[in-house]
């Protein structure tokens, strides 16, 4: 390979393997020191998205979503669906979401639902959808503006690791908040802090049904016949921390589920969306992975989470996932081992682990074999052409490629390996989107876009195919479908 091709290959590793893809000028900017550009972003580029009226805190979003549900009549229907109507203050039922009540009661328990007696104007009845698109729009703005996008890729990785889905009004309203409040602040923090923040977050508690979990011997558990829900405990062990081969047993899942009882959502201001309800908490000592956690309140589960974050199996699990996501479906064993070592040595310092990933020679030497995930493909295309706004279009594009925003097929998130995305359907889907994006482009010169996208690293075949296209639109579509754009 020619020296310029080699340099630009390294620039593209920085911008596409680690980042969100080059914008015009990015290759020139990072060419001299690609690794430095990535590390510089890790050190300096802000990861937080500020709270605003458009991007509320989870507790506020939760409360507003519940109100919106009532105002569009969903509450009447929804609670009627579950055989329960409630609108009166009742210490037993306080903060028990409607969907939870039938699980507790079994038989319908009808309480009159009053019209809004205060005459306040209703919350926008499609609050949750409006909020979701505001969340997406904020991400699109961020993706367009970051110099490399490594930090945003880390946010995408960890969000997928701690997946939640929009399977209810309240979840649609709070999934974005989980990323903002639990993931982003901890991407350059510690895994222990991230694990705790995610587990406490109302979106995770709702998604994995901890709301419906009652300790059998708790006060409410004895009152109602409903019992333990093990989803959250199991997924923390299997997906978030130890991994499926992490050495836990079904007994550990059940014990951890008991410890997690009482971890509930709350719309109360200042709560962060969380409250601990001792009435639901299973009393007594419980043993997880051979360690006894003495009877207690919220700190019982906090102790388990802290221990899981320190567990060597967690280090191994997380290191391997990180290497698979960024570098290769079959990453070099010594790269994974190095990341694992850094995790253990630093007490789960994620900035240190991310840094280790970037400075590892294997990360740069590994051949380009990973297909851009649908989200990555669309984001990279929009970054290249400078497109922002229109979150609905963005959401439609990635949904059509099988990776709808915040709606994975399960708590294990979207697959990060090629076998899920390299397929006839996958490529035809991308072709349709590439064509659509290209047709929407009103200006731009294919030769400039080619340089912006690949520098000198494009093959002669790609160069020829783009420059000999019969129209600008066709040229851009070919560019977006070129192997150099699809693989990173």
């Amino acid at each position, binding site marked *: 390979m020619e020296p310029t091709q080699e340099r630009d290959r390294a620039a593209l590793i920085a911008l596409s393997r680690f980042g969100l893809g080059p914008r015009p000028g990015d290759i020139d900017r990072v060419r001299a020191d690609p690794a430095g550009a990535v590390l510089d972003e890790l050190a300096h580029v802000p990861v937080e998205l500020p709270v605003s009226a458009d991007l509320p805190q989870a507790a506020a979003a939760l409360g507003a979503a519940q109100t919106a549900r009532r105002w569009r009549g969903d509450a009447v229907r929804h609670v009627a669906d579950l055989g329960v109507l409630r609108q009166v203050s009742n210490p037993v039922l306080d903060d028990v979401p409607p969907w939870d009540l039938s699980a507790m009661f079994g038989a319908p328990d009808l309480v009159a639902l009053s019209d809004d007696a205060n005459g306040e104007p209703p919350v926008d009845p499609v609050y949750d959808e409006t909020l979701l698109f505001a969340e997406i729009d904020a991400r699109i703005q961020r993706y367009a503006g970051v110099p490399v996008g490594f930090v945003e890729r880390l946010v995408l990785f960890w969000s997928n690791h701690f997946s939640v889905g929009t399977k209810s009004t309240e979840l649609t309203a709070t999934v974005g908040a989980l990323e903002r409040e639990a993931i982003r602040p901890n991407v350059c923090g510690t895994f222990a802090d991230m694990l705790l923040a995610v587990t406490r977050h109302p979106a995770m508690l709702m998604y994995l049904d901890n709301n419906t979990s009652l300790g059998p011997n708790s006060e409410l558990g004895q009152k109602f016949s409903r019992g333990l829900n093990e989803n959250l405990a199991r997924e923390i062990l299997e997906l978030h921390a130890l991994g499926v081969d992490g050495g836990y047993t079904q007994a550990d899942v059940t014990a951890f589920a008991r410890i997690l009882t009482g971890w509930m959502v709350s719309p109360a201001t200042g709560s962060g969306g969380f409250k601990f309800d001792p009435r639901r908490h299973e009393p007594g000592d419980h043993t997880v992975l051979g360690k006894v956690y003495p009877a207690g309140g919220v700190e019982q589960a906090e102790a388990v989470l802290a221990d899981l974050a320190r567990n060597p199996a967690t280090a191994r699990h997380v290191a391997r996932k990180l290497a698979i996501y960024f570098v290769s479906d079959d990453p070099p064993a010594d790269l994974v081992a190095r990341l694992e070592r850094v995790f253990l040595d630093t007490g789960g310092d994620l900035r240190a682990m991310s840094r280790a990933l970037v400075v590892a020679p294997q990360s740069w030497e590994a051949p380009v074999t990973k297909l851009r995930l649908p989200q990555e493909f669309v984001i990279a295309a929009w970054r290249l052409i400078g497109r922002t706004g229109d979150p609905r279009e963005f959401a439609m594009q990635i949904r059509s490629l*099988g990776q709808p925003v915040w709606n994975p097929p399960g708590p294990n998130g979207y697959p990060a390996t090629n076998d*899920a995305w390299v397929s006839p359907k996958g490529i035809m889907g991308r*072709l349709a989107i590439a064509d659509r994006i290209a047709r929407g482009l009103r200006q731009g010169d294919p030769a400039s876009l080619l340089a912006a996208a690949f520098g000198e690293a494009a*093959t002669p075949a790609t160069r020829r195919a783009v420059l000999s296209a019969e129209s600008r639109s066709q040229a851009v579509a070919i560019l977006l479908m070129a192997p150099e754009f699809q693989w990173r």
Partner: protein
Amino acid sequence: MAMMCTGPSLSRRAVLGSAGALFAWAYMPKIARAAGNRDFRFVCIVLRGGMDGLGVVGPVGDPDYGSLRSDLALRLDGPTPALPLDGFFALNPAMPETARLYRAGQVAIIHASATNYRNRSHFDAQDVLESGQPHPGVTQSGWLNRAIGGLAAGDRVNPAGSLLGVGTVPPLIARGATPMLGWAPSRLGAPDADLIARLETLYGKTDPRLLEALQEGVRLERIATAAGAPSKVANQTPEAEMAAGVGRLLVSDNGPRIAALAIEGWDTHTDEAGALRRRLAALDSAFAALESSLGPKWQDTVVLVVTEFGRTARINGTNGTDHGNGTVAFLVGGAVRGGRVIADWPGLSDAALYENRDLRPTTDIRAVAKGVMADLFGLSAAQLASTVFPDSAAVAPMQGLVV
């Protein structure tokens, strides 16, 4: 988790030769034939949202039906009469094709049926319906994927790919360890042939993997859309277009033989009469499209149509219905022993309703799925009660569903 065709291994390609068979690059189980060497086709349609069985197939002979449903009740008289089925039940008038097929003995309806799940939450109920598990939350794979996987013993390689999952995210029933071919109807208009040709040229030079995927994708699309065929039905519903594509793929050489797809929009809380009619018209058109695109193979086809739960027996305050339990399932196809409504009818009196609100389920829908899997593919009751529908030994496969 969505599963697509796995990447090729050199040894498999060597075995399969250079014929470039349509789905040659994936491990696909051979479909066991039931006795008689018949080459069946099976389609499972998941209706998402909880279809109102009482509004689709009305028990007009039940004395409580009219008062429970008032304006939403199907009637044999009046301006838009329901289509009589068997003297007790009548079909929503939005389904004339289904009525025709019923009269031809190609539709069986199973009423007052449901899974074993009773808590009326869409996502949990869909989990149970599709995963085949006795409770929600276990979503690594679907029952159909496991059923097909269960046919693979003894056969490691077969060019005939069996299982087709339809949609940008295919239904859970088709996902799992058994490889699944993916196809989604293109909603954004087909990219032009020249662009495709130029990409094929480019990939041909530098990217064999993308070339293979693109060529297979183009070929699938040509089959599914009958590209080059003389006449296309004008103003087809999207559901009919999707169904026609599925049918064409199911009769293609070395193509899939089993398909799973979903149709949304059945959660009729508000103004149900019109909303349900429109959905039923779309479903009706899909049945007709499958019949047409499968051609002679329709005689060997079973389509199973299921939904996650039914709806309240009474209408609500917004002229709709809320989440319930018992509902209908359909079996449609030339291989169906049809022309009948199968129901252990519980009645609609207050005492007969489930929790004084829903049609009480009296048939476990797993019995229907098991019966079909047994008759079409020879799966044993033991396999069906362990691998396909875990912990369901108490649910006996329904007999005699297939002719």
